[in-house]
């Protein structure tokens, strides 16, 4: 284990290492007691049975590092969306799962020692904890050490989204360690002061979170025996927060721009049916393992693709649409769709410690476990070109960065009413906005397989294959 540690450097109990495309977790001797208790008490099995925790198998460690106690092969995660790309429903699932895990863990005498949403990923519509070495023994009468982190990293974002809108999910990117509680307290509306969970855990907590304490005061505090929680008290605390979050069914809605697009705003049913037929045919020809649906809107074509392929990853810039897709996933119990918020003109870069802790969206989606993949960009080119000012060369490069084998892209011509609406107030010459120019830009990375006109509109669908599929253009 000589390679540098960027993924799990904060954890002294274990280390996650990526070796030849496979993730391993090394459990260190210092975590032996906790790990053994976690496995032997039945807690691991209980959480696994509920689908709350990633599964793993123990391997024989043949290395010579004396600090290693166990070598684990966890279930491999082929794609993880980061919390600032989650919609409200996804945040709600993650926080509820976190609290439920703590309730179960407490009944086994253990507790989660940290509280970061980055420890969760979505699988088959569920939030799943990926950190097996997060559990420690709960000692009666001690404080909940992850309490502040929980309030800052879990409770604050969901409260802000519930009272002020889903855009607050994206603000998590601005401060990965959680927004300061006094800042959060100021952003929340007055009515949040009448909610007991917000009042106690955000507003009042914020008053104390930055208290200046002298060494003498600190020692006096430490001498008090009963300063923490009994198991019963902690369970009451968890229940209180859980019941609030369960009541917060929706985020405050500030923008309904895209919802109902297909129902109210589309040109003709003939257009939609034809588009579906063509895409279905091309998907069955290409047989990709994964479809990456860019600009998924409310997911009509993601759901269509999900019937044809193993896995669909849908990216959409509007949090409300992401939430609508997530809710449809819940209702239909659809297991092979993952959805996340992503603005294609502001894609997630590599970030975190030394920019190596968290990976860019292109790196995560270029994962060999997802290949062969097919990128679907339906009716987004005009948004990227006109609204976001990306040139055709930029857009072609953007599509190529996903390293997918195939590309299905829809071109909406200048005379289309939607394009006319976009260019109406733009004082710019759009005479170069033609399908010929767009196709020419794509041909740098792709070869054209087929072009089909969609009946009921003047739009066209292009089916292309990556010239260097599988090779890295990142």
């Amino acid at each position: 284990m000589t390679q540098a540690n960027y993924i799990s450097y904060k954890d002294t109990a274990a280390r996650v290492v990526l070796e030849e495309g496979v993730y391993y977790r090394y459990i260190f001797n210092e975590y032996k007691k906790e790990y053994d208790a976690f496995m032997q008490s039945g807690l691991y099995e209980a959480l696994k049975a509920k689908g709350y925790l990633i599964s793993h198998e123990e391997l024989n460690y043949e290395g010579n590092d004396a600090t290693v106690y166990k070598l684990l092969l966890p279930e491999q995660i082929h794609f993880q969306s980061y919390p600032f790309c989650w919609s409200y429903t996804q945040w709600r699932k993650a926080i509820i799962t976190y609290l439920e895990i703590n309730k179960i863990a407490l009944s086994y005498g253990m507790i989660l020692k940290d509280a970061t949403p980055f420890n969760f990923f979505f699988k088959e519509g569920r939030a799943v904890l990926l950190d097996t070495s997060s559990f420690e023994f709960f000692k009666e009468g001690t404080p909940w050490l992850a309490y502040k982190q929980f309030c800052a990293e879990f409770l604050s974002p969901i409260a802000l989204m519930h009272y002020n809108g889903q855009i607050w999910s994206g603000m998590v990117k601005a401060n990965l360690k959680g927004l300061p509680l006094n800042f959060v307290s100021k952003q929340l509306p007055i009515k949040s002061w009448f909610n007991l969970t917000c009042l106690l855990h955000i507003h009042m907590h914020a008053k104390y979170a930055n208290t200046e304490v002298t060494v003498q005061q600190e020692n006096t505090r430490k001498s008090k025996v009963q300063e923490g929680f009994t198991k019963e008290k902690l369970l009451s605390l968890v229940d209180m927060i859980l019941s609030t979050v369960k009541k917060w069914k929706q985020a405050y809605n500030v923008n309904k721009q895209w919802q109902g697009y297909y129902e109210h705003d589309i040109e003709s049913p003939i257009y939609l049916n034809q588009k579906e037929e063509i895409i279905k045919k091309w998907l069955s020809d290409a047989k990709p393992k994964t479809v990456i649906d860019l600009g998924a809107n409310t997911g009509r074509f993601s759901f269509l693709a999900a019937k044809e392929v193993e896995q669909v990853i849908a990216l959409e810039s509007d949090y409300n649409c992401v939430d609508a897709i997530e809710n449809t996933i819940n209702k239909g119990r659809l297991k092979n769709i993952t959805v996340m918020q992503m603005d294609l003109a502001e894609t997630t870069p590599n970030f975190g410690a030394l920019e190596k802790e968290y990976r860019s969206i292109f790196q995560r989606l270029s994962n060999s476990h997802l290949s062969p993949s097919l990128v679907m960009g339906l009716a987004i080119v005009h948004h990227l070109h006109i609204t976001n000012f990306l040139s055709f060369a930029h857009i072609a490069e953007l599509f190529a960065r996903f390293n997918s084998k195939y590309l299905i892209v829809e071109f909406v011509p200048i005379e289309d009413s939607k394009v006319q609406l976009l260019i109406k107030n733009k004082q710019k010459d759009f005479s170069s906005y033609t399908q010929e120019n767009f196709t020419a830009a794509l041909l740098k990375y792709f070869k054209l397989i087929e072009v089909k006109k969609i009946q009921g509109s003047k739009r066209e669908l292009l089916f292309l294959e990556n010239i260097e599929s599988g090779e890295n253009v990142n």
Partner: protein
Amino acid sequence: MFILYIDPGTGSLLFQALLSGFLTIVVFFKRIMAFIKLKLGSSKETDKEDQEHDPS
């Protein structure tokens, strides 16, 4: 700046001591409620909300 040397968890721990006091009252009333329910012989039904949520 002096403030950077404050342990960020200290204020939170102080607050938890207060919270613990508040929870003493909560737990006290919960126990009374549980006792009354037991005496009335009504076993607590599963909360509808719990069923609704189960993140499954």
